[in-house]
């Protein structure tokens, strides 16, 4: 311990320059800051307006758009917004990223060619029906590894991290994780998952795609007119988007595994997750080729399907599987789902993984 540390009383002046620093009355400081903020607002308003547009439908979004609209229009009229847009173009920040900013993206190493099918598929344990997609390879090797793509939202990150690591630990799988916080299929204006997935499929050329997504989807589709969550029209549109996304994931011949949402601590959110799961499960059975839906509902909940922050694992140990927010998964919770997917690959899909 630094017993001889110098005594600290308050932030010290560090040199003679500190005394030469000019002070100012608070009113001048206030106006300087307000003027700087206003100038920044004028320069940055189009970006702020875009961020407001892609935020959840509600009063806050409406007010923000009303306030920012005239400022952004002025910025564009004066060509001031070009400073930001040109900078974004120069730094390559114009791609498909949430809110047009940086986010969590984990990309795996380089990819290898697919190999021929080796063994037919078997029956699934947690699936809505027997898996029917024939995997391209079931005996991957270090020289010719299985290519797995994992995509999802923040719960997809919670599951995808441990899964990516567990798959990499087999030594015969190259796993790519592309998961984004606060994303889903309801708001492509915020983050366009179909576009992102197309890019992932092209670059990773996966033989297995694992998807865990939906926690952010219980929200209105922005209009006009807005389509409220839980309305019949919402259900139809959401089912269409899920089906299209599933088909896109399997369009290259990959086996698709969709991991359902677990129960949530908040009863309303939990009911919403149940609704989302129902749509996902239904579409998994309807799309062609069918998608393997793995339910996490009772695995990360009680036998009755209620929320459970702690579960007892096969060794009889108590493990904390949920974070205190009652939504996300702890690393141990992610590991539970990782094992669910791994067991499904090894069992019903007959992949031989060390």
């Amino acid at each position, binding site marked *: *311990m*630094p*017993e001889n*540390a110098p005594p*600290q*009383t*308050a*932030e*010290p002046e*560090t*040199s003679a*320059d*500190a005394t030469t*620093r*000019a*002070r*100012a*009355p*608070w*009113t*001048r400081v*206030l*106006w*300087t*800051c*307000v*003027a*700087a*903020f206003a*100038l*920044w607002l004028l320069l*940055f308003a189009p*970006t702020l307006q875009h961020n407001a547009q892609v935020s959840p439908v509600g009063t806050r979004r409406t007010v923000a758009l009303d306030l920012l609209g005239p400022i952004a229009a002025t910025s564009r009229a004066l060509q001031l917004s070009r400073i*930001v847009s040109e*900078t974004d173009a120069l*730094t390559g920040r114009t791609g498909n990223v*949430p*809110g*047009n*900013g*940086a*986010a*969590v993206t*984990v*990309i795996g*190493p*380089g990819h290898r060619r697919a190999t021929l099918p080796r063994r037919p598929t078997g029956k699934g344990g947690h699936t809505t029906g027997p898996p029917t997609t024939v995997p391209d390879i079931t005996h991957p090797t270090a020289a010719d590894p299985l290519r797995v793509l994992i995509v999802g939202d923040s719960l997809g990150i919670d599951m995808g*991290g441990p899964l*990516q*690591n567990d798959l*990499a*630990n087999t030594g015969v799988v190259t*796993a790519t*994780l592309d998961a984004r916080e606060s994303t889903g299929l309801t708001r492509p204006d915020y983050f366009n998952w179909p576009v992102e997935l197309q890019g992932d499929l092209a670059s990773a050329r996966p033989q297995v795609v694992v998807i865990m997504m939906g926690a952010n989807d219980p929200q209105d589709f922005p209009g006009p007119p807005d389509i409220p969550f839980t309305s019949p029209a919402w259900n139809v549109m959401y089912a269409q988007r899920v089906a299209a996304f599933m088909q896109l994931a399997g369009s290259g011949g990959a086996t698709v595994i969709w991991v359902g949402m677990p129960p949530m601590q908040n009863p309303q959110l939990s009911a919403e997750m149940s609704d989302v799961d129902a749509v996902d499960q239904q579409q998994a059975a309807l799309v062609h080729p069918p998608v393997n839906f793995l339910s996490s509902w009772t695995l990360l909940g009680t036998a009755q399907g209620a929320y459970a922050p702690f579960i007892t694992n096969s060794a009889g140990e*108590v493990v*904390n599987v*949920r974070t*205190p*927010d*009652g939504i996300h998964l702890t690393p141990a919770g992610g590991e539970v789902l990782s094992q669910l997917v791994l067991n499904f690959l090894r069992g019903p899909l007959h992949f031989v993984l060390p």
Partner: protein
Amino acid sequence: MLFPTFDFAIFFAIAFTVNWLLNPYPGPWKLSMIALSYVFYGWVGWSYCLLLVATTAIAFIGGETVNAAVGETRRRLAMGLSCAGLLGLLGWFKYYGFLSVNIDNFTHVLGLGHAVPLLQVALPIAISFYTFMALSYVIDIYRRQLEPARPVDLALYLSFFPHLLAGPIVRGHELLPQLRRKRDPRSVDYARALWLIMAGLFKKVVISSYVSGAIVQPVFTAPAQHSGLESVFAAWGYAVQIYCDFSGYTDIAIGLALLLGIRFPVNFDAPYTARNLQDFWRRWHITLSRWLRDYLYIPLGGSSGSEGRTVRNIMITMVLGGLWHGAAWTFVVWGALHGLGQAVGHVRRRSRVRRGLPAVADGPVRIWVQRFLTFQFVCLGWVFFNASGLSNAFALLGRVFSGWGRPSPLVTPLLVLVVVGTVVSQLVPSARVDRLQAAFSRQKAGVQVGLLSLALLGITTFGPVGVAPFIYYRF
């Protein structure tokens, strides 16, 4: 409420105006600052405010009781009960879940079943920080280093929003006198304040976010997927990330307080230039380091006893310091590593003195080697600090030794530049920064407005949308 948000910008504009308008009226000023601080804290969830009220009440009653108690035994008892109350709150909210799982698993192994009820207790943001401030307040009164404060002063001392969420851990004798006197509204040290705020925002929003997304998260998430070089850069990158995140927060907090006419203690002093671990803890999270020294290490006996007792005291202090950060074995290992490193340094220094050996002459090579080795040891600790579990930490460390000869696409020239540049930037003398602040303060208002807006534009343009919360909010 997070500092780098639109909500906070509006909040602070109101707080700044109210602060100076009510400055001539101490009573209304204090009440308004308390109200604003509670709004700031309650922005996430109002229930948290009740805990802050409870902490303030325990500290106030404790301070009054200690001060009124006659005789050393009663004073000590009153102080002990007050500290137990404060630590009880912290323990319940922060450690119950961790302890219950570990106790249950232990009793299960012994065949005693699950002995403790399992409850998931939500950790209120900032509880570790204001609990430590409340503890220091009661103990300082017990030590007769501080007079008990009036309830309104104590409430403001504990809740004052610039330090509330993640420090600095300001002591009573530093802040309470400032809250009692009027500030000079014609002499705001705005150049330093604005510099600190902009530098803090840049570190947090641009550097920390970039390094986190570019290397730290990918490698810590799946170490087995990454090469040895990427693992090394992930550890170095986390050193940069947490420094920019936490010192960035602190810079903003100090700058905001300065705009309100209040001075906070410094919390960071170029920590990666440290030449040994003792030196590191004089430069990293200084207000926590001195808290642990004054309220734990020295009461345990410090270094005044035998070598064995000193080593024990260092280990206890650092392990508990690790646990302060979070209820997980990774933090225990992190604290133990720092304790072990300091204990070895202490024993070596004592050994030299005992054998009558002269101090080793400092040369540039020796200084740089010491700095390099200290930084590597600190990074080793950071691996445990950031890991999701011990197995995750060992997996990453394993890759450092086994993952060579593989491609390292995440180690880009930009990443190397940012990581190395951030560490090297700590060698810039603070006098140069002071000169820049002085030069800024002498500019005309129009120039200042232009520079400030350009700085903001740079930060918001190069930073991500939706900045992640500060790492130390978790503690």
